[in-house]
């Protein structure tokens, strides 16, 4: 691909999703965009770029953005955040929210649903403690295709073997043909919504917990700060933000600070910590 076409595509993807396509990632263009080109009856990436430039085809541009922003996802990714959720965050939220008995969780950039569904399984495992509580999980993604996949809760044999303990597979999934489908009851615990992280999340409401893991790494500094500002506006004063293992707020924003002793967890810089660490 020539430099001008690469620049054109990366600008287009950046404008629409915030995702920064660096030259090292250019190998992704071919594997991800060839299927898009084929679907649109175009011979290759050159013709695809030409069509975008000449016709400004909205559907094509949408498909290109979607193909470039789709990420691999696994159940209980990194494990540690889920252990923290189960052992530290949730027990303390049960105390802090005892008056309202209501907890709202946002899984931002949920891809095909593994993250929110992992939370559902944990909550279900702890249901004895959760009686009378209303836990709302809102999962968002920029890609309607990913959201449809997530809503169906249907996964390949490969996908259910990535991070998901076998006991949970047996307990919460049904085999349908060569795929595995998450129990309808668990699926109904999650509200899926199309949402672009560049937009302001106030339309989603306020949250006690936000999972925004392994998304910011794809953004440049100003975009990271912009997204974190939005999250800070909808996160309760004692709420917790989860970022991915390779992500940090340091040098990006002073609105958040790390939770002492809990890797990957952040709280409002001026907020009351709901999470006590001793």
């Amino acid at each position: 691909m020539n430099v001008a076409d690469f620049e054109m595509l990366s600008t287009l993807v950046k404008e629409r999703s915030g995702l920064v396509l660096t030259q090292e990632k250019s190998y992704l263009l071919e594997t991800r965009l060839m299927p898009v080109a084929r679907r649109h009856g175009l011979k290759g990436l050159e013709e695809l770029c030409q069509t975008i430039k000449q016709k400004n085809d909205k559907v094509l541009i949408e498909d290109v953005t979607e193909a470039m922003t789709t990420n691999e996802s696994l159940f209980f990714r990194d494990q540690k955040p889920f252990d923290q959720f189960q052992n530290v965050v949730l027990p303390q939220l049960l105390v802090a929210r005892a008056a309202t008995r209501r907890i709202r969780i946002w899984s931002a950039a949920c891809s095909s649903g593994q993250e929110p569904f992992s939370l559902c399984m944990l909550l279900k495992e702890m249901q004895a403690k959760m009686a009378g509580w209303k836990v709302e999980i809102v999962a968002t993604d920029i890609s309607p295709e990913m959201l449809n996949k997530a809503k169906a809760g249907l996964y390949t044999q490969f996908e259910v073997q990535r991070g998901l303990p076998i006991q949970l597979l047996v307990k919460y999934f049904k085999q349908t043909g060569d795929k595995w489908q998450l129990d309808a009851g668990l699926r109904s615990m999650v509200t899926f919504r199309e949402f672009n992280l560049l937009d302001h999340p106030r339309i989603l409401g306020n949250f006690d917990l936000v999972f925004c893991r392994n998304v910011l790494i794809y953004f440049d500094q100003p975009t990271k700060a912009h997204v974190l500002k939005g999250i800070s506006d909808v996160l309760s004063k004692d709420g917790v933000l989860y970022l991915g293992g390779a992500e940090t707020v340091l040098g990006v924003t002073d609105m958040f600070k790390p939770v002492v002793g809990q890797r990957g967890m952040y709280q409002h810089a001026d907020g009351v910590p709901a999470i006590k660490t001793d």
Partner: protein
Amino acid sequence: MKSCLVVDDSRVIRKVARKILEELEFEVVEAADGSEALEQCKSSMPDGILLDWNMPVMDGLEFLKAMRALDNGAHPKVVFCTTENDLEHIQEAIQSGADEYIMKPFDSEIVESKFHQVGLL
């Protein structure tokens, strides 16, 4: 260094599994069926066992039950690795003492993630 016994009647599978496990820094021992594996366990109990189901002489499930009945039989983490991919087989394996279950085909990522889950990594 932790040890892992790979039990599979296919030499190719054993070779693939050995390569993956050695990269994860396991000392690998191989057995071609359940009875060979049982002899191995009697002489030296491994930390982990990657276990096929369908094998000649003694199958994986029979081996698992016999191995768990040995003196030190509770020690190894057992991960089934088989083409049997239906719920009934998985449930039977867990009830018989398997810790995890891999449905073939598998890759290094799946092995690594399952070994993490059972605490071998």
